[in-house]
């Protein structure tokens, strides 16, 4: 029985000022509506321009559940298409990345398309003469995603033709992407390896919320980070230097007071980040030669300003998290209401010492891998929540920590770092982008 379809009122009622109904995590119909409304209305991360360095390079991705394809055209421009042949719907590219040469060729009937998506050739073209083919959508080649923005090499797309502009959607939140790129002495990032992939049997939003949940590390990760700290204390002997591994695990065990003072910043449209004043990434060892490179590139003042910004996790609504200080992006890709594929990418700071890339790769496998003990701690919690939420005893999830009745929506604010306000911020955006085109869909259907 459809409870929520074409019913903006019912969707909006799932989000209260500081609570959300469990159906946002467990109801398959709500998930379908997210695919139909939320993801197309949002600006979603597709990939990084460094993955498309040469003409003919392509990557594949999904927006919500829709397969897309991004390519580098011969004139240097980047295009995003729906990844299906206009003929019979066959996916044009099936690999995560590659180079297609001068054109894409459908493997089924050899229809071919230029790397800007336009139709190049169809075998036996005569068979379409006088059939009205030129009036069909197929004649236009690969269906194009019209709203694409490449910001500092990060490729974002919005599937809906109408909606909030890229600039209005992200606003000041882009400062985290800026900081990550600025950390390269050349101001450039590069993807040079595959991501770590990790399948989660839980709703995608649990992962997004956890990015700014600062009251769980010292509890849920006592088993991993806490044990790492304990074993190091016992085994360190006369060592005066803390190994990189212990430097990465240790800060997870910081007390509540640390997270309280480090702060959270929220932005309009569901974006926000932890680690305003400082973060768990603040006290890593200096890497020899790096500061000198940065000073040479940016000058003393600007270099310290860039490196002094050590934000923890920045959520870009709806489904990515960026860690500028460690050059990691996690993409929470929805598969089903209770299934999420997490792809965690590491960016190399172009021109910076190898040690920084080594550290980012180490962090990624410690925290974001199926073999990561920190990951095991988190996934256990998500899975238990996915099960527990089936209970009818209480149908609401409580997000009231440090809630104030005077809270405004869609504002920029800096608050206590243990607040659940960023989660409330996300759900306000969730309801907004879920329902913004629902009335229109009703009209169209009538």
């Amino acid at each position, binding site marked *: 029985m459809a409870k929520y379809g074409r019913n903006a009122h019912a969707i909006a009622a799932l989000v209260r000022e500081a609570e959300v109904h469990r159906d946002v995590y467990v109801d398959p119909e709500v998930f379908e509506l997210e695919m139909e409304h939320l993801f197309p209305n949002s600006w979603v991360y597709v990939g990084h321009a460094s993955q498309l360095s040469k003409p003919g390079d392509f990557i594949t991705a999904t927006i919500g559940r829709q397969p897309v394809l991004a390519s580098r055209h011969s004139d240097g421009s980047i295009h995003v298409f729906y990844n299906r042949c206009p003929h019979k719907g066959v996916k044009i590219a099936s690999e995560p990345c590659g180079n297609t040469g001068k054109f894409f060729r459908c493997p089924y009937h050899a229809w071919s398309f230029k790397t800007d998506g336009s139709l190049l050739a169809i075998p036996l073209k005569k068979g379409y003469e006088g059939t009205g083919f030129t009036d069909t959508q197929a004649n236009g080649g690969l269906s194009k995603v019209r709203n694409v923005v490449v910001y500092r090499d990060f490729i974002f797309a919005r599937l809906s033709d109408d909606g909030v502009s890229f600039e209005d959607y992200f606003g000041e939140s882009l400062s985290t992407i800026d900081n990550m790129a600025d950390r390269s002495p050349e101001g450039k990032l590069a993807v040079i*390896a*595959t*991501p*770590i*992939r*990790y*399948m*989660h*049997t839980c709703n995608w939003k649990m992962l997004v919320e956890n990015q700014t949940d600062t009251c769980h590390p010292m509890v*849920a990760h*006592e*088993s*991993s980070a*806490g*044990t*790492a700290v*304990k*074993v*190091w204390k016992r*085994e360190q002997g006369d060592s005066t230097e803390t*190994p990189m*591994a*212990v430097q990465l*695990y240790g800060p997870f065990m910081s007390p509540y007071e640390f997270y309280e003072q480090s702060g959270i910043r929220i932005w309009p449209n569901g974006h926000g980040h932890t680690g305003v004043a400082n973060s768990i990434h603040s006290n890593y060892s200096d890497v020899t030669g790096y500061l000198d490179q940065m000073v040479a590139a940016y000058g003393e003042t600007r270099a310290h300003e860039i490196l002094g910004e050590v934000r923890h996790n920045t959520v870009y609504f709806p489904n990515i998290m960026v860690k500028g200080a460690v050059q990691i992006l996690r993409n929470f890709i929805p598969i089903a209401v209770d299934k999420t*594929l*997490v*792809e965690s990418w*590491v960016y190399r700071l172009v021109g910076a010492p*190898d040690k920084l*890339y*080594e550290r980012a*790769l180490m962090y*990624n*496998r410690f925290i974001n*891998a*199926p*073999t990561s*003990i920190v*990951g*095991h*701690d988190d*996934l*256990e*919690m998500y899975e*238990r929540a996915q099960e527990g939420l089936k209970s009818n005893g209480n149908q609401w999830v409580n997000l009231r920590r440090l809630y104030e009745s005077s809270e405004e929506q869609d504002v920029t604010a800096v608050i206590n770092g243990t607040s659940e306000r960023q989660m409330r911020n996300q759900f306000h955006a969730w309801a907004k982008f879920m329902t913004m085109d629902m009335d229109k869909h009703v009209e169209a259907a009538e």
Partner: protein
Amino acid sequence: MINEKTITDLIYQEAELLDTMQWQEWLDLFHPEGRYWMPLEWQQQDPVLQPSLMYEDLLLLKVRVERLSGERTFSQKPKSRCHHLLQAPRIVACDPAAGVFKARTSYIYTETRGDLLERYSGWASHEFVEVGDTLKIKLKRVDLVNFDAPFGNIQLFM
């Protein structure tokens, strides 16, 4: 005297220790400078500047082992168990004069927890170093046939 049988016996012993969850005895098989490596790329060469699923020294392996029995290790309530099915190891090198001992073993690995059971296939490459009259693991490299697939939790050791 170390010979090819010393190597194969040690590989079988290692699998048995893991299957019977004798974690400390398993750690004792490693050289103090030993490493456990799970690459993320096909025929990967570099564990440090290429992404891996695991590349851990003895300190980190001790953390894992200690965590498994932790009071607040909730992802081990209930506990995981594992099973190694090994093909006969192929001796790649057994050269006592040069101190080089290597073997490659094809395996099917099963990890189970609660009602779930997952199977993995791959190859284990061992490099040993001679210590006294025995061998210690210098490197255990585990290459999964589908290293690029998205797995759920892998909590024990292949």
